[in-house]
């Protein structure tokens, strides 16, 4: 009901042409890699000791709490330690230090699988043991979504990539159409949905044509979505495709979603028996010399990636781990490329003058969660718990749109984060 609530999205200038047409660069692997022993907020236990030799594809760690997720080595070499380093979430975490011998000796991480003849159970176990995880940014183990696929009407491959500047998924899809097809059809099978669709932005005409060719005759249809932010967010995408809203999980609306890069990774695992060890990463923004897409091993420090792209263009830059909307600006570039990281956006530092809030309500009209950011900020300032409860602060996903649209250049999203922290604190006190 855009007449009475606003549209709950915005078209933003994606600046995608900075990296759309340049070739993808494969960077020489670094001498030392640091594999983050984290998945989301959960630690992963190392399976190798200091001094152990590892090969490409050696299982080096696993998450083993209520979820299971194995990690594999991207290079061959020696494990030389476990170090605490800062992650993109700006927390300290253990990283497995691997010295690269540059020989790339391989070992078969697992056997390939023919998804068509395999049973659903075999396929689910394969997804679990191959360490498939959401590559769109969440890093959530993929198999969990398919544990109980009941009443799924639509399986969605999410290739929307709505973050500005990022083109990694786009490049990955164009380069790996066959793997995308295998991975998507395997996930469709797991979902037990009758039909599936793959969504990309409607302005990517070349990609849509390729996808239509690839998926012709399958149960997966290509459904372009408008060039808006955040069209790639689960709730917005489900709403755009089905006009349904849901409370907690997309399965309530009969949908399961997976990122297109995840589908490609699964295709690679099924066909070639290879785990996720390398990533397409977009390095873009006005602060880097050569904006382009790169293929890098997981565990490569951001500093090395930026250097390979020509380095910074100014002495004072902002580097976002991810796109500029949801990617955190990290105050150093020692963090490494993790499995869920698909971009580095670098800007020359700009000074912004903010003025007072004029209550224009643009944040309220844009919020994809239907919240009222201006009211939340006001309630946070006065620590008005009652109002914060009414205003449903917890539904904020920090997509950043409220700060983006703010004509007064205020940090609206940051105010909501403060409100969320305050609410969490109050809940703890009780």
């Amino acid at each position: 009901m855009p007449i009475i609530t606003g549209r709950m999205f915005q078209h933003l200038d994606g600046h995608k042409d900075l990296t759309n047409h340049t070739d993808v660069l494969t960077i020489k692997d670094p001498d030392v890699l640091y594999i983050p022993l984290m998945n989301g907020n959960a630690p992963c236990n190392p399976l190798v000791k200091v001094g152990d030799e590892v090969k490409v594809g050696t299982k080096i760690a696993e998450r083993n709490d209520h979820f299971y997720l194995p990690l594999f080595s991207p290079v061959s070499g020696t494990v030389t330690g476990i170090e605490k380093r800062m992650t993109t979430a700006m927390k300290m975490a253990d990283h497995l230090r691997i010295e690269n011998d540059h020989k790339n000796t391989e070992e078969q991480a697992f056997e390939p699988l023919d998804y068509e003849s395999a049973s659903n159970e075999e396929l689910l176990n394969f997804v679990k043991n191959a360490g498939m995880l959401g590559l769109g940014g969440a890093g959530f183990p993929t198999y969990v979504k398919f544990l109980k696929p009941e009443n799924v009407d639509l399986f969605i491959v999410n290739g929307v990539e709505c973050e500005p500047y990022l083109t990694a998924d786009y490049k990955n899809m164009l380069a790996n159409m066959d793997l995308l097809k295998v991975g998507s059809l395997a996930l469709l099978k797991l979902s037990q949905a009758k039909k599936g669709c793959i969504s990309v932005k409607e302005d990517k005409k070349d990609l849509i044509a390729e996808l239509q060719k690839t998926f012709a005759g399958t149960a997966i249809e290509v459904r372009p979505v408008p060039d808006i932010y955040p069209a790639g967010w689960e709730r917005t995408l489900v709403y755009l495709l089905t006009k349904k809203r849901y409370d907690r999980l997309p399965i309530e609306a009969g949908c399961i979603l997976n990122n297109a890069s995840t589908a490609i990774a699964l295709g690679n695992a099924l066909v070639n028996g290879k785990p996720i060890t390398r990533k397409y990463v977009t390095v873009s923004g006005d602060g880097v010399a050569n904006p382009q897409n790169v293929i890098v091993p997981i565990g490569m420090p951001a500093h090395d990636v930026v250097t390979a792209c020509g380095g910074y263009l100014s002495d004072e830059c902002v580097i976002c781990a991810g796109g500029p909307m949801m990617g955190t600006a990290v105050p150093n570039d020692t963090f490494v490329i993790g499995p869920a990281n698909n971009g580095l956006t670098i800007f020359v530092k700009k000074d912004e003058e903010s003025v007072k809030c004029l209550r224009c309500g643009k944040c309220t009209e844009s919020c994809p969660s239907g919240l009222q950011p201006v009211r939340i900020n006001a309630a946070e300032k006065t620590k008005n718990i009652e109002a914060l409860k009414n205003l449903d602060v917890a539904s904020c996903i920090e997509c950043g749109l409220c700060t983006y649209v703010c004509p007064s250049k205020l940090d609206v999203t940051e105010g909501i984060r403060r409100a969320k922290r305050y609410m969490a604190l109050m809940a703890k006190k009780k």
Partner: protein
Amino acid sequence: MKLIYKPSPNYRSPQSTSGIMKDLTYCLIAVTIFSSLYYTMAFGSNLGLRVVLMMITSVASALATEAIWCKVTKQEVIKGVLTSYGWVTAMILTLMSSIKVSYYALAVSTVIALVFGKLVFGGFGQNIFNPAAFGEAILMNTFAGSNRTDILTSATPAAAMKSYGWMTTGDTFSTMMTSKGFGSLGQMFVGWYPSAIGSTSALLILLCLAYLVYRKDIDWQASVFYIGTVFVLSLVIGLLHGQGIWYPIFQVLAGGVLFGGVFMLTDPVTSPVTILGRIVFAVGAACFTLIFRLRSNMPDGVLYSILLMNMLTPAIDKMLEGSQIKDIAKLKKRAIIAIACMALVTIGVGAIAKTQSAASTGNPASVNEFAAAIPESTISWEGTDYE
């Protein structure tokens, strides 16, 4: 090499608050130019010039007030003045005023509007009342006597209609329009008639609305729902009294409905933050406008309807607090109940209004005579159409 931390997102829309105010200023300048042209052609270059001088007086006092305020409160003067946007208040205040208002009264009202209407609340973004409306209320109630009596223009349509209690027969109406020289409703749409300085040209004001909406400076909802509600409710009230389509059209064109609806009701600072809230706000203002027109002593109800709804803004925001997805059914229900109550009361008030016409007074031999018999002095609120 230094990497800087800034909370995400690190990406911003090119639109700025200063840009919004700039667009608004362009629109107000366009209205001023139109008005100056009208007064020049209709009453001579003296009055045309007077429009410009009044504008300069008010804007200059606004800038001076804010500069002094910044100095006194130890803020950076130039930045403070530039981000307080006091000139917009001054321009709106001038355009709402009558051409007869003295420079002195206008300047003092501007100062009061800014200091007591805005700055004491904490400046831009913090004020409860639309500062221009606040200043105009002061101007009309405190400085009515300082109006220049040597400036002779004719009566305004709103004031003329007020003399029939905003409810008259079609015949009396057409006579009034001709005898007072307002011409047709079409002429009123173009804006070639005397009223408050800036509120006459429906055409120009609607163009401004289109421009501001196109530039995403304001939402269309507040203006359209305000003007639309005035139209629909006066259509209903008119039908109850057997009036034709001229009645709702005149209600929309006369007085400050369009100017107030486009330039004042859309003031984001003093209106609710949600679109649904703005719709309730606009409908409420429309209802008050009609009630004031039909039942109060004031010729027009726009100004006070806006000030009253400004007061209700926090309550409306509170009423519509919640998630616009999860709670939308509840919020919609609240809004509909509020709107329905206000509309019913307004229609009720309209229903009991008495149709007054030249004939119904029983006395004057001819309608024309009656219209002419309204002495100019009784229309001392002439330029106070906004009341």
